[in-house]
């Protein structure tokens, strides 16, 4: 092939291309700045009113005292032991769920998929319930949630794959079936649970809340989310290729099965980490990738990080609502579901208008 004409063509079009990408290139840094701002603001709100400066001084004091402490020791505890771990948990969870949602949507070429829809969440939820019932905590609970999460993915994939092809519609239906099964299993576990201690623990935990997060919880969820998110990000171009369909991806030379399994295992690990520390927080992974796609387009190289940061901001805002709207805490999972369900309905309608279900 003559490459001299390649150079000429490249020269002409580089300008257009770079201008088009400039717009989306700004999105990620802007979102990161927004995340920092929202984080600082989130520490100030709550029962104890603190200014951004107070918060900054309290936090900096740990490293190097700038001013003589003028604040109440209670304020310091509120900031460092209550608010900061909870905020970190919201950031890590929002980031992980959104990134895995974006990856799963690409992988299954289906904009209606998220860890909840394909059954991971309820599988992991049952694993966690079982762990509480057996009196297990911490990493053991995480392991149980992970094992059942990955098990449910395996079942859904098995149910929806016929002769090596995974159809869009059957995947969602299989997810519904598996979710229903694990919901029933959770009910049985609740029925068997001690009604004075374990039942309330299970019920409140399943609603999804990060109110009582401590640094150990943050560490636990980060240990699940960070490596999984890195693995998903490394596969960003492969996810692009798989979103063209399994056959086309195979023809282009992609290792379809390997990529599918890495993304599925990473997503199951993220969901398990979230479920283990904070219960079921649904719909985040479904909603956020759509907003991100509207901002930077479908290319997963840009979509994945933008989805993650956007999800972190979103969950942080939702958590701020959860702890400030009423005097009692509203479980986080209830708010994300209240926002997520109407958004799902709108996406479904739009997809239907475009004839989205006609493809496989």
């Amino acid at each position, binding site marked *: 092939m003559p490459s001299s*004409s*390649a150079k000429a063509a*490249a020269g002409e079009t580089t300008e257009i*291309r770079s201008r088009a990408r400039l717009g989306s290139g700004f999105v990620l840094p802007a979102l990161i700045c927004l995340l920092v701002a929202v984080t600082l603001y989130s520490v100030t709100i709550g029962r104890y009113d603190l200014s951004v400066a107070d918060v900054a001084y309290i936090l900096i004091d740990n490293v190097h005292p700038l001013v003589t402490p003028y604040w109440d020791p209670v304020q310091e505890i509120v900031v460092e032991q209550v608010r900061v771990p909870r905020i970190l948990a919201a950031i890590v969870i929002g980031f992980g769920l959104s990134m895995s949602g974006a990856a799963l949507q690409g992988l299954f070429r289906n904009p209606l998929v998220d860890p909840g829809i394909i059954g991971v969440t309820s599988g992991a939820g049952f694993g966690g319930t079982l762990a509480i019932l057996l009196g297990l905590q911490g990493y053991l609970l995480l392991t149980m949630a992970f094992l059942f999460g990955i098990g449910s993915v395996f079942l859904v994939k098995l149910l929806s794959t016929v002769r090596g092809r995974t159809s869009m519609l059957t995947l969602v239906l299989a997810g519904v079936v598996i979710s229903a099964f694990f919901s029933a299993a959770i009910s049985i576990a609740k029925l068997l649970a001690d009604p004075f201690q374990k039942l309330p623990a299970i019920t409140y935990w399943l609603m999804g809340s990060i109110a009582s997060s401590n640094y150990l919880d943050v560490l636990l969820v980060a240990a699940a989310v960070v490596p999984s998110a890195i693995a998903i990000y490394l596969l960003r171009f492969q996810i692009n290729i798989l979103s063209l369909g399994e056959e086309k991806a*195979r023809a282009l030379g992609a290792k379809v099965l390997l990529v599918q399994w890495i993304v599925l295992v990473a997503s199951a690990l993220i969901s398990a980490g979230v479920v283990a520390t904070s219960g079921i927080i649904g719909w985040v992974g479904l909603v956020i990738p759509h907003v991100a796609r509207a901002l930077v387009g479908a*290319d997963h190289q840009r979509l994945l990080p933008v989805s993650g940061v956007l999800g972190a901001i979103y969950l942080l805002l939702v958590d701020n609502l959860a702890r400030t709207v009423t005097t009692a805490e509203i479980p986080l999972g209830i708010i994300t579901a209240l926002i997520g369900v109407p958004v799902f309905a709108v996406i479904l309608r739009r997809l239907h208008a475009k004839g989205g279900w006609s493809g496989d």
Partner: protein
Amino acid sequence: MIEASDLTVERGGKTILESYTLNLERARILAVLGANGVGKTTLINTLIGVIKPKSGQLSIAGPVGFVPQLFEVPFSYSAFDIALMGRARHLGLFGAPGRKDYEIVRHYFHLLGIEPLEQQTFNSLSGGQRQLVMIAQALASECELLVLDEPCAALDYKNQDKVLGLLEHLRDKHGMTIVFSTHMPQHAVEIASDALLMLSGTDYVCGPTTDALSAENLSALYDLPIARADFEGLSKHTYAPVFRHDGGRFDG
């Protein structure tokens, strides 16, 4: 380029192709003709490596590029994003395209004259434009054999002319070997050096277009009288169906 001997291919436990033997040399164009459901797509999927043959030998000397029929994506990728995915084979599991890959894709957009489409949403393009972007994707993979599934099926005459002209150009100027399936014998007459007429899963005619394409063979292929028609005042010909108008068979 392609050497297949005694090829048997199954799909879903059913034998679709049996004992197919065909050879295609470099820089030639093979047209694949056959009735609906005879196994054209199965043969193509075997050539591009998506289906493994049940028995027999298949060897292809060089990387294969594939252009599917009527391609749609569920997300709003730009035309450039789509073509860039052709670089998959050169990038490895954790790789992402770099400067060189962008330049290669730009080169083929220039070659095909579709630079203005670079930033447009792929799904918003017309059938002909999408076909060209998919060809750019296949070329970006730096294939030596280009396989196209009914590249002209959804196109008007002008776009058919454009695609056929492009395929001929790729063979003549770039030495590419090309396999395409079609329902119109004229496409084969115009650009193919070889033709494969798939009469059934076991029975086929394969050879140079001038030998394999005859009114007699085509009539057997389509189970309908096909006649040769010469263009008046031109030294060109085509094959066209002689429709039977026997509507009476629908009664009772």
